[in-house]
């Protein structure tokens, strides 16, 4: 939990299920997934993997996997070609928090974000998004360049 950062240990706040880190590493090192969507399981008080997307899937597929009225965390592996014709890949962390979702969900995801984000080592950019206009392939491109 962000508020607790200064003096807390890993045991505080929301937990992170072990497979989250593993899935992230598979995306980062083995490029096994295009994206990963995480959700908070409030009963178990931890973040779990909700969905993974194959490498062939597009950004639109990724967008379609985010709920319209609930919050999620997501990782997206953005591949692009630079002006020098160089293949590059940047990993984005996305805090998805649509304006119409319940305040309780927004609060839950916002307060636990920092703690979860620190579990994922090697994220290049972070985006907070409340609607699809903020989460567009152009936004990612702009940030990555």
């Amino acid at each position, binding site marked *: 939990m962000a508020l607790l950062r200064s003096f807390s240990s890993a045991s505080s706040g*929301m937990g992170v299920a072990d497979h989250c880190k593993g899935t992230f590493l598979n995306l980062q090192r083995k490029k096994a997934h295009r994206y990963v969507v995480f959700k908070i399981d409030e009963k178990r008080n931890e973040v779990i993997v909700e969905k993974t997307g194959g490498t062939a899937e597009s950004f639109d597929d990724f967008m379609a996997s985010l709920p319209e009225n609930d919050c999620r965390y997501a990782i997206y592996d953005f591949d692009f070609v630079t002006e020098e014709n160089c293949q590059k890949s940047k990993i984005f962390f996305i805090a998805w928090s649509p304006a119409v979702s319940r305040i309780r969900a927004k609060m839950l995801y916002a307060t636990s974000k920092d703690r979860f984000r620190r579990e994922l080592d090697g994220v290049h950019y972070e985006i*907070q998004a409340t609607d699809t206009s903020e989460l567009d392939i152009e936004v990612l491109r702009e940030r990555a360049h």
Partner: protein
Amino acid sequence: MYGGDEVSAIVIDLGCHTCKAGYAGEDAPKAVFPSVVGSIEQTEAINDVKSEKESEHISDSKSNLKGFDSEKAKIKRKLYVGTQALGFRRDHMEVISPFKDGVITDWDIVDNIWAHAFRERLIIDPKELPMLLSEPTSNAPQHRERMAELMFENYNVPALFVAKNAVLTSFASGRATSLVVDSGGGSTTVAPVHDGYVLQKGVATSPIGGEFLTECMAKSLESKGIILKPRYSFKRKEVRPGDFQVVDLVFPNTTESYKLYSQKVIASDIKESVCRAPDTPYDEKAYANIPMTSYELPDGQTIEIGADRFKVPDVLFNPSLVQTIPGMENFLDTASVRGLPQMVIESINKCDVDIRRELFNTILLSGGTASMQQLKERLEKDLIEESPQAARVKVLASGNSTERRFSVWIGGSILASLGSFQQMWFSKGEYEEHGASYIQRKCP
């Protein structure tokens, strides 16, 4: 503390203008009442002081002690808290506020406000429930310690948490990073929040809040010859069905502050019902011929409000406008007070270059004054004109005006009810072991 959802807590947001109190987990505060209180100095106490003064020369040895006592007796007063208690006019009752320039100066009043909230409105025993309090974004450390002391010593609360207004608003909108523009009753504060922390160097405040605008409205109406008759000063009788007669009542012992308070209640209602932020900077000529809107005063008199509907809210954007409102000319040092868009830009520019883009992109509106019609659109428009080209300006406000007005309280309510929050409380045990200053570590 597992099963956090069942642990109910009390959330109090004591603002300059209204106090919001209720149970954690609910979506609106149970009790909303003014932060000002009525005060009557106890007459017996004054008599005591007099008699003591007379007897002073008789026994010199006792005078020291008595001097101290009379000091105490002088401030002996009866406080009236809550909408109802204030709505009833009493002889010699002054209306006083615990705040001065947005800072709590009178803790005795705060104590009474809390007591009122617990015992008369929420009907709970503070000994049994943890307490989450909101605090102004740039609250001094000694004030939070004082708060903790009062809560633990006077009310014996089992646990406490103090969270900053801007942080609560930001979390309630689902963002750990944002620029919070909180325009409340007493002031307007612009605060950058990054990963759940307020960046203090970027905080900007201005004394222009709802109450200031209310005053502009009242003064402007006054200059047009409209008298706002407080509700207590007349009686409306129905002479024949549908035909009313107003009879003035005279209460010579009413204090000036009570009269002003009652008039402000009316002016504030006028402001809330008719005002709208103009789409472009206010221009006397352009608004000279706009259609009038009517408003019925409590005494049955109907008044017409024209340009003031737009002029008063525009003070937020252009503070120097107050110089054209009769009676308000000297209220502000207009050289130092900035308009809302300038405050936002200055605040963002004081932050690290890396996060400016994100701040421009997530400007959150909160507070009662920010719920004014068209304010969001106007702010966004002004900012797009004045911000750097590359910045994508986005002003966000929750569509629902209750959510906007109570965003701080709602943020606190949900935070306190989250299961993952339960281990963050500053407990009574910790207070007893480490003292009040430990709150600085528990509640960053």
